[in-house]
């Protein structure tokens, strides 16, 4: 097993050309990216709307859980039978997979904004959109990105199903390896997939830190400077 893996990894043919790891990684990233963008385009506005207006929260959480329960492999197979198009089936399957975490993160982020802060914003004369973009979104951005991170992890792990309906990506190594009893390819494909997931997750964790507004970091005490003492009351 280990030797099979070592043989596979040391074979230069597996690292170049249209069947090589770099090409497969790019294909894989393509499915992930496409699924993520489409899911975000659907889930972020819905999450913002529900969080901002407070309407439909129960429905949202319930349907989110129901969608999560769908097995992606089964869904993709079903979609392939319906649409008879591999790409549509795979991408729709991935979008359905990625929507719940993004939706939950966005909704939770907006909901977590202090009610007093929202009340003050309204009382100062901010209109609904101004309140959303200037107050609620910046403050909730870290949680929204947390949802995106979750979605990306699941997408990278699950995008292998694309190969099941005849597409490419890292799933090829798994499907073809199993079919050809080439376990070196199977294990290598799994490892590359895991490494890709971890790398993307680290990148997003970095992004999450960057977009976290300084004042919010100080308020939640998640940063190093949060330890700074609040200044003493000067005049009272």
């Amino acid at each position: 097993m280990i030797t099979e893996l070592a043989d596979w990894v040391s074979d230069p043919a597996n690292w170049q050309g249209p069947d090589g790891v770099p090409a497969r990684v790019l294909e894989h990233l393509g499915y992930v990216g496409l699924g993520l963008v489409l899911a975000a385009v659907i889930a972020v506005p819905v999450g913002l709307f529900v969080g901002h207006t407070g309407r439909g929260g129960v429905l949202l959480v319930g349907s989110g859980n129901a969608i999560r329960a769908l097995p992606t492999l089964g869904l993709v197979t079903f979609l392939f039978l319906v649409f008879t198009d591999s790409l549509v089936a795979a991408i729709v399957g991935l979008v359905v997979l990625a929507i719940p975490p993004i939706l939950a993160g966005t909704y939770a982020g907006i909901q977590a904004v202090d009610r007093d802060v929202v009340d003050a914003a309204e009382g100062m004369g901010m209109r609904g959109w101004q309140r959303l973009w200037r107050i609620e979104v910046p403050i909730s951005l870290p949680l929204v990105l947390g949802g995106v991170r979750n979605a990306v992890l699941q997408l990278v792990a699950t995008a292998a199903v694309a190969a099941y309906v005849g597409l490419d990506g890292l799933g090829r190594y798994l499907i073809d390896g199993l079919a050809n009893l080439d376990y070196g390819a199977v294990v290598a494909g799994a490892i590359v997939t895991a490494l890709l997931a971890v790398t993307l997750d680290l990148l997003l964790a970095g992004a999450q830190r960057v977009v976290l507004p300084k004042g919010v970091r100080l308020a939640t005490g998640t940063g190093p400077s949060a330890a700074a003492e609040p200044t003493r009351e000067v005049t009272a």
Partner: protein
Amino acid sequence: MGIEFRGVTKTYPNGTVAVDDLDLSIEDGTITVLVGPSGCGKTTSLRMINRMVEPTSGAVLLDGRDVREADPAVLRRGIGYVIQHAGLFPHRTVLNNVATVPLLSGWGRRRARERAAELLEIVGLPGELGDRYPAQLSGGQQQRVGVARALAADAPVLLMDEPFSAVDPVVRQGLQDELLRLQERLGKTIVFVTHDIDEAVRLGDRVAVLRVGGSLAQYGTPADVLRHPVDDFVAGFVGRDRGYRGLSFLSAEGVRIEDVPTVRLGGEPGVAPGWRLAVNDAGQPRGWLPPESIVDGVLTEDDLVAGGSLYRQGTAIRGALDAALSSPAGLGVVVDDDGRVVGAVTAHQVLDAIESHPESVGSA
């Protein structure tokens, strides 16, 4: 800018009546306090002024015009709004928080920030706090920023919803003093909501006592409400000490101030049979020297017993009584505006003055 409630009722869909047929006329340039127990509709009433809540029937008039004629956002930018936990925007610096309404109203960035800096000074915050974030401020400082933010657009009306109830008592008193000082300078129409009758009496030019169910129980000056509560509810709400608190509105003119024997810190006092008041070189009281004390050499603060509260000449008689009652010598120290000793009063003298006062609690 006067505010008028005309037959205002607010009923929620579940049938709760928050405000019941409220008629109230708030005068321009005064502090009017809405006070009452929880569930009396004081916050709901306040929030109907800036349309955060819409009345079910009746109308709220601002400067003679129904507030429902105005666009809510524009209306609110012209009304300062301060809430209990300040509600500062955590992701914005103090200066940007204060500049919020000027920016919303389309001022230039630079002008808005200059105005914000000016406001920080007005509410007594050092300018360097402008670049901090709300999380880096104490509770009292956050409230001051909240007040500064509400004042930034120079709105003639200020709504304050229990703004000081989340800070500790010492800070609260500082903030109350500050508000009164600000009001002397700015002359806004302030509507202030609190559940604390002491705060209401301290701050209000007029006090509106509301009862549970949202009806107006009594509306008048603080002295009026304390001295002549209209019914048992108001009497119960303003509390048992209302006789004593009523002294806050009685002048101390009739109280005879007597000379008090003093000794100087740093001098040699000798021995005397009675209490003597120690003063510093500026003539300000530092404490009491007990009868028959023998001081070794010169008098220092270590030889003294701490004094009671001081009564500043010209203020209400309540302070004079408190000074007399809290003094270890039984003599309330009277000081002038610079804190120098003028003389002393006894509790007897104060009570005599109260009894013979034409407006006193006893004769009311």
